[in-house]
């Protein structure tokens, strides 16, 4: 769990660094979707990890699927808009 937190913290810091140094414009609702997406992705990953540690493999994969896919959609929407504007 500790290392998952570290990985997420590093990834979020790198993303923010990239957004601010490149001067990428992100609208307010894209921030909200992105924050929700990251939170849900984090929840999916820690439950996946916890499920594996509990020896409940099927449950672990279900968490990754049921929580992880909406998380990727939430993250994908702002990423797509940002990409379109940039391109």
């Amino acid at each position, binding site marked *: 769990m500790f290392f998952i937190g570290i990985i997420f913290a590093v990834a979020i810091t790198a993303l923010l660094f990239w957004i601010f140094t490149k001067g990428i414009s992100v609208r307010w609702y894209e921030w909200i979707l992105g924050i929700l997406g990251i939170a849900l992705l984090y*929840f999916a990953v*820690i*439950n996946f*990890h*916890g*499920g594996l*540690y*509990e*020896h*409940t*493999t*099927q*449950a*672990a994969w*279900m*968490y990754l699927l049921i929580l992880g896919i909406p998380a990727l959609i939430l993250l994908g929407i702002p990423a797509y808009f940002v990409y379109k504007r940039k391109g």
Partner: protein
Amino acid sequence: MKGMGLVGAGVAGTAAAAPIFKDLDDLTSYDTNTKVNGGTMFPWWVKERPTHDPTVDVDWSVLDYKKGVGNMNPDFIALLWKGAAAQFYKDNEQARRKRWAEGAKTNKNGWTYKDIAFGSGLTTARSIARTVIPLEGWASEKDPLMSQTHGEYITPEVYGAPKYQGDPETNLRMIRSLLHFLGITRVGVVEIDNTTKKLFDNYVQFADVDYARQSDTSLPTLENSTPIQVKLFPNKVKYAIVWPIRQNATVAQLAQAQEEDGIFKGFPPITGKMGVYGGYMAEPVVACQLTHCLNWLGFEAVWDRRLGRDLSGMNVCTTAWGILGGNGELGRYGCATSPLFGNLFRRNCVIFTDLPLKPTPPIDAGIAKFCNTCKICADRCPSGSISTDSTPSYDVNVFQEKRGGKTWGNTTEVEGRNINHPGIKAYRTDWQGCMEYGGPHDCGICMAQCPFSNDNDAPIHTFVRATVGSTTALNGFYANMEKLFGYGNKNNSPEDWWNRNLVTWEKDFLYQKPSGKLF
């Protein structure tokens, strides 16, 4: 204990920035937040209920263990022996031997001789522990083995010490502190009053005696077995200390039936039982330690268990005491269910004492309501011995029809008494059906399969339990998700468990999580 300063002048500088325990009294009550060590010791969603009012309705004008064939009282033991003499019991034993022989011969996962030897070894060790740990049974009797040190009885007066004084809440914290040190993270207290006296059977008589002991009167037990002596229970002993011994969740998960056909069909591997017997072993050890400590403090400590030094003892239904003390709620499967480890109660342990203690009320974590919709234990019980009704009932004979009225476990056949107690609005268990199947010895599926029995590594469990404790709206949804997500999906491999990485594995705690952390 005042004056036994733990912090000397030399370390005063460094101690300024750290918690300071001035003396042992301070250590036992170091948490100044009364909601913590003097409170429920549960998360916020576990609510307290009024005294003697658990989440299942109890009609105290009807409930009386003197009228029932109480769980663990001598009549019940007599019934067990009757069951053990029955043909089905012998058949079960034969079938078990066949499974074990086949498993050992084919090195079947979970049934290798290693599994059998270690599962059985823990079982026999536990039986011996009950006999050889001398304090089991009548711990408070002035027995030379128990209550003496260096030839003198243990009392504070022997050491010229004043009688121990402590207010009930401080005493509760002190006992919790000690038991936590011994691996027990939740301790409750029930007051013995006119209501809870109904939880004692005919073989206990309250009397103005200094310490618990046998009387000169004997009462017959069922089936004309040897009469047993009535126990004199001191009137001054007013409190029951109740604490759970839990089973290890990872091992319990191995107790799932893995075969659809053949002689192993419907029977979980014996590896899954190791937590059961490991847990049983813990009880006499912890109870013995607590008993000695209470005696040294100058107080009585009466343990409920049978097989004391005089092969007698006093049996009480410890589940009832545990539920009244807030260790859990009564689950559909017929025993206590904890908000934190579900049906993995190896035992609710009880020690009665005259040390004044603050009682802890029953709890409501939403479990009894969740049972109304869940039914997972009932659906997965291979013998159909757990009620599948959707509402609890005062009717104790719900399985009578199924058994054609002929049963020793669930009818009024036994001297007009019933093994399922009247006066409790609950889901009933067909104890005979369970035993005829080979349970709980060869089974125990209902304990492992409860959603509350899941380990707490995935944070979603905490989220779900907090919701269940706050509203019933999502109970049906959660019960379905439990099934959809494959909890109890028969995939756990005992052989994998034997080969777990011991350097990184953090889940081999016998009693409860050592840190006391809940998740």
